[in-house]
């Protein structure tokens, strides 16, 4: 029985190693400025924790001896104080190092100073659709009042106040079009329930909470189309609340803005 148990745990450990090393699916290619540091952090975590996993399972296998094997530690029958302290300090040190190295990235991601020529986009989550609003040449967003003005069928899904001059040149799009290589400043909001803007390729996720305007930032680095998924349960259509990020060259972006503005 001991042998069978050891083999079972061993097979499981090997299976897990094979699964993660061969990884049939993995991270999508990273296309933003924060994807490389995040992927690096993950790699460190993966190897450290993976090593702890393997060591843990192997030690467990090692202690499961056949009955009759003589390994009796008559010395440490009830425990060993020094050993206890030693391994507590060791694991605490490992986790402390792990924690500190991981958190440097967090302060980079979460604290951000405004850049002058950043693209401003306002993201609104609605059941079950994403809308992206650009402020237009006046670089000001118009006032929004969903309850009074929002009419999706009349082309005003966000409810931009027609009386507000700043809103006349706002561009509302259902695709997030961005120029490669420029900072993007996002304002995230929601019209009905909590949603979450998740762009896996850019390693970006932020909940959009009704009643809040959450500021975040992005720096797309590579031209291409990337999918957006909703990552907070928002109702029946949660699974199909999809959008696309189109990262284009600077000229394309300006062209697109002009085309949208003229409509």
């Amino acid at each position, binding site marked *: 029985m001991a042998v069978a148990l050891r083999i079972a745990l061993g097979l499981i450990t090997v299976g897990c190693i094979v699964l993660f090393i061969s990884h049939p699916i993995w991270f999508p290619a990273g296309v933003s400025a924060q994807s490389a540091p995040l992927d690096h952090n993950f790699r460190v975590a993966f190897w450290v924790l993976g090593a702890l996993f393997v060591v843990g399972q192997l030690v467990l296998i090692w202690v499961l001896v056949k009955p009759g094997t003589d390994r009796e530690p008559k010395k*440490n029958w009830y425990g060993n104080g020094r050993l206890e302290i030693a391994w507590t300090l060791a694991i605490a040190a490992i986790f402390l190092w792990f924690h500190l190295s991981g958190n440097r990235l967090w302060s980079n991601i979460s604290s951000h100073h405004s850049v002058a020529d950043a693209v401003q986009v306002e993201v609104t989550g609605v059941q079950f659709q994403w809308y992206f609003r650009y402020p237009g040449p006046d670089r000001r967003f118009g006032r929004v009042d969903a309850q009074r003005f929002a009419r999706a069928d009349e082309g005003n899904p966000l409810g931009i106040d027609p009386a507000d001059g700043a809103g006349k040149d706002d561009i509302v799009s259902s695709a997030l079009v961005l120029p490669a290589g420029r900072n993007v400043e996002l304002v995230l*909001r929601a019209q009905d329930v909590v949603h979450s803007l998740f762009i896996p390729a850019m390693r970006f996720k932020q909940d959009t909470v009704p*009643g*809040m305007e959450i500021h975040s930032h992005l720096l797309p680095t590579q031209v291409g189309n990337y999918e957006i998924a909703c990552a907070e349960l928002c109702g029946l259509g949660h699974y199909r609340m999809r959008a696309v990020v189109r990262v284009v060259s600077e000229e394309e972006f300006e062209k697109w803005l002009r085309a949208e503005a003229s409509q």
Partner: protein
Amino acid sequence: MPIISDRVEIKRKPKLGGGGPGKIPHRHGFGGGDDGDRGRPEDFRSRRQRMRRYRLVMGLCLFSVTVVFVVLTFLYILRLGTGRYDEDAHRQIQDWIPLKLPYLQLWVNSLLLLLSSITLEWARRGMARKEEFVDMGIVPPPLKQDLPWLGISVVLGFLFLAGQVLVWQNLQHQGVFLATNPSRNYFYLLTGTHAVHLAGGLVALLYAAGGRLLGLRFESQKIAVEVTGWYWHYLAFLWFCIFALVHFAKG
């Protein structure tokens, strides 16, 4: 009254593991024996242990209730201080409309509650004194002497609750409804939660006061009064905290 407590000390084995026994208490009721419920109810140790047990449980319940009221108070102050986010102004704004509290009514209610606490305390001490008669084997005198205090506490408690309902009605006549503003939301939440807990205490008090009629043993009634007394005093203290909060943190 002395408690038999012959402590037996065992040499502590010098190791970190193994769960060395330390001092083995032999006091009944605290790891030294069960609380003697198997003994005759008149046995002194048994009565004491029953009281201890019920007091412990009430203490734990009050602990739990305290956490809830601390959280609610914290939420009240937080909401008062931070306001809400305004999407037009793009910042937090204060939207707390201070309540015009009917102070006279509130002070009357507070007085009623305080009095009910005092009368309940008299009832409780009366019963403790009565117990001495019971110990000496004398049949306890008719409990008419402490029924009035218990009965008065019940009446005062009812009056307090009725007074609270009147305060709410008064506020509603001023146009202050539960839903109109966060200050109302939290005011009604705090006072409502307190009132519900007090109503529960009132039921317990009725049970304790009517104990004899329900055939409760004297000792059980004493425990009921004691434990309800703790609860009641705690809720009275809590009421004054809530009153102070809605007054000083008016917004």
